C-alpha cells in the first residue's frame, strides 16, 4: 500500500491549522483595553444617569422637604449644576481622574472616603459567600448532572429552583425571624468586643453567619443549574466514549474528561453573574444592616444623596468590569482553544 505515496505527497499533505506565537500578550492587551473602554462607558453612563436625565436632580435631593428657590439655586451652584452640560461633564471627568467623586450631600464628607470605609466589609461578605456558593454549586451540579433523573438530582434541582425563585431580602427576613436571638441582627461587630484580633475575628464571623447563608442560598442555585446543564451537554460527547473504551472507571471519566470541559462555560457564567451577586449584596446588606457598599447605596437612595449614589454606582460597576477582565484572562488559561483563536 505504501507505494502509492508519491514523492510529491509530503508537500501536498494538508496543512495543520495555523498557530500564532506572541498571541498571549496581544490577548491580554485586548482584554484590558476592552475593560478600559467599558470603564469609560460606566463613567459616561454615571454622568448621563445622574446629570442629564430629564428628572430634576435637585428636586430629588429635597424629596419631601420644603425648600425655598434660594436654597435650590444655592445647592445647584454648590454642585456645579448651573453650568452648561458639557462643562459639567468636563468637570466631572476631571474630578474623577483626580480620584474625586464629589462630596456626599448627607454625610458632608468626600464620597470617596465613605466608599473606602464601606468597601472591605462588602468584599469580605461577597468574597466568602461567592467562594462557598461556587464550591457548593459546582459540586452539586456535577453530581446531579452526571446522574440525571436520580433522586439526588430531582431533589437538589428542585431545591435550587425554589431558592432561585425567592427574593434575597425576603429569605434574609425569614432567617432573621426564624433565628431570633441566636445571631446578631445588625452590623458587623459589637462595639464592646475586645480589640484583640481573635475576638474581633470571631465576632465578625458571628455577625456574618446569617448574611452569608442568605447570599449563598440565592447564588449557589445558579451555579448548580449551569454546571448541571453544561455537564449534560457534554454527556453525549464522543471523547467520553473514547475514555470509556480505554477502560476508565465511571468516576474517572467524569473527573478527568467530562468535568474539565463542562467547567468552561460555567466559569464564564460565574463571572458574568457577578452583577447578580452585587444585587444580592445590596438586599442582604440592607436587611442585615451590614456596613458595606450595598447598605451605603440603600442609605444614599433613601435620602436622595445623588453624589454618593453616583459614587457607589461607578465603584460597583467598575469592580464588576475588573472581575470580568480577570475572568477573560483566567478563561485563556483554562481553555487551550481560546489560546489559538
Amino acid at each position, binding site marked *: 500500500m505504501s507505494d502509492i505515496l508519491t514523492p510529491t505527497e509530503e508537500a501536498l499533505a494538508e496543512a495543520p491549522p495555523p498557530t500564532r506565537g506572541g498571541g498571549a500578550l496581544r490577548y491580554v492587551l485586548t482584554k484590558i483595553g476592552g475593560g478600559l473602554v467599558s470603564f469609560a462607558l460606566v463613567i459616561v453612563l454615571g454622568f448621563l*444617569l445622574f446629570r442629564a436625565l430629564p*428628572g430634576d436632580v435637585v428636586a430629588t435631593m429635597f424629596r419631601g422637604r420644603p425648600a425655598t428657590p434660594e436654597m435650590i439655586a444655592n445647592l445647584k451652584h454648590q454642585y456645579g449644576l448651573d453650568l452648561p452640560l458639557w462643562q459639567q461633564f468636563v468637570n466631572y471627568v476631571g474630578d474623577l481622574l483626580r480620584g474625586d467623586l464629589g462630596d456626599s450631600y448627607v454625610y458632608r464628607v468626600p464620597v470617596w472616603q465613605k466608599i473606602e470605609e464601606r468597601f472591605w466589609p462588602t468584599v469580605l461578605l461577597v468574597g466568602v459567600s461567592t467562594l462557598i456558593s461556587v464550591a457548593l454549586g459546582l459540586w452539586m451540579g456535577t453530581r446531579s448532572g452526571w446522574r440525571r433523573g436520580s433522586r439526588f438530582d430531582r431533589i437538589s434541582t428542585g431545591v435550587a429552583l425554589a431558592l432561585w*425563585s425567592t427574593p434575597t431580602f425576603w429569605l434574609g427576613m425569614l432567617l432573621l425571624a426564624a433565628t431570633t436571638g441566636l445571631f446578631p441582627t445588625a452590623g458587623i461587630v459589637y462595639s464592646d468586643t475586645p480589640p484583640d484580633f481573635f475576638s474581633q475575628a470571631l465576632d465578625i464571623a458571628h455577625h456574618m453567619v446569617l448574611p452569608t447563608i442568605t447570599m449563598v442560598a440565592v447564588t449557589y442555585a445558579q451555579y448548580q443549574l449551569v454546571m448541571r446543564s453544561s455537564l*449534560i*451537554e457534554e454527556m453525549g460527547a464522543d471523547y467520553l466514549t473514547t475514555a470509556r473504551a480505554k477502560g476508565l472507571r465511571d468516576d474517572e471519566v467524569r473527573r478527568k474528561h467530562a468535568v474539565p470541559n463542562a467547567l468552561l462555560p460555567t466559569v464564564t457564567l460565574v463571572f458574568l453573574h457577578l452583577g*447578580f451577586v452585587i444585587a444580592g449584596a445590596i438586599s442582604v446588606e440592607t436587611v442585615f444592616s451590614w456596613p458595606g457598599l450595598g447598605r451605603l447605596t440603600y442609605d444614599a*437612595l433613601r435620602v436622595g444623596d445623588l453624589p454618593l449614589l453616583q459614587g457607589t454606582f461607578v465603584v460597583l460597576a467598575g469592580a464588576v468590569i475588573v472581575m470580568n477582565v480577570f475572568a477573560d484572562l483566567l478563561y485563556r488559561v483554562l481553555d487551550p482553544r481560546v489560546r489559538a483563536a
Partner: protein
Amino acid sequence: MTVPKNQPSPRALAWRRRGAAFTAGWREFAKQRAGLVGLGLLAVIVLLAILAPVITDREGLDVTKATGDRMESPSWEFLLGTDRPGRSVLLLTLWSARISLTVGFVATLLSVAIGTIIGILAAHYGRWVSAGLMRITDFFLVLPSLVLAIALSTVLERGIGTIILAIGLTSWPSAARLVRAQTLTIEARPYIERARALGGGHFHVISKHVLPAVLPLVFVNTTLAVGSAIVAESTLSFLGLGDPDPMRPSWGSMLRSAWLDSAIIAGAWWYLLPPGIAIGIVVLAFTMCGRALESVLNPRLREG
C-alpha cells in the same frame, strides 16, 4: 401539469403545518408534569388577579377605611391577619398580584423585544454592526443591572412606568446574547445560503428563515425572564423605589412595609409570609413552564 381543484391552497397548507407543529410541541410539553403544574398555577393566579375587582372591594386597600386592628393575627374575619394600618393581608396579597404580574410581563416584553432586535441585527449584519452591538451588549451584561435600575428609578419619578422602564432597560442583554447565538447557528445553515442564491435579500432571510426559527427560543426566554422581572420588581419596591401610592401595592412594597413596621420583631408571620410565598410560587411556576418549554425545543435536555 394539471392540478386537481380540490387541493388545499398553499396558505392553508402552511397553516396546517404550523398547527401540526404546535400540536406536536404541546404534546411534548404535556408529558412534563412540572411544566403542566406550573402552567396550572399560573392560570389560577392570573385569573385571580384579573378577577380581584369582581370578587373583592378595592375600598379595603384604603388606609383610612381599614376595619381591622393593628397587625391582627389571622382570624375568620381576616384569614391572613392584618397589616399595621389594619388592612386585610389577604386582600393586599391579591391586589398586589395585579401590579407585580403587570410589571413582570410588560418589563419582560420590553427587554425581550430590545434583546431580540439587537441579537438578530448583531448576528445578521457582520463586522462593524455586530462588533459595535456586541460591545454594548457585553457592557450592559456585566453591569450590575440592579444598581443601574436603582439609579434609573431614583432619578425618574416614582411609579409603575419607571419601574417597568428600569427593569426592561437593564435586563435585555442576556436575551440579546441568546438570540444572537441562535441566529448565528441558523445563519450558518446551508438553507440560508440557498435562500441567498435564490435571490432573497436581508428582509427575506430574516423574516422567512431567521425569525421563525428564533421565536420559539425567544418565547422560552420570555417565560423564564418574567420570573426574574418579578423578583427584580420586588427588590426595587423593597428598597423603596416602587409606587408610593398605598392603593397600588405590590408584593415587594408589602414586604417593605412589613420590614419598616418591624413585623419580624413583632412575630407577625402572617404579614411576612404571604407576599414572599406568592413571589416564590409565581416565579417557580414561570420557571417550571420555561424549563419544560426549553426541553421541548432542545431534546438533549429532556429528562431520560
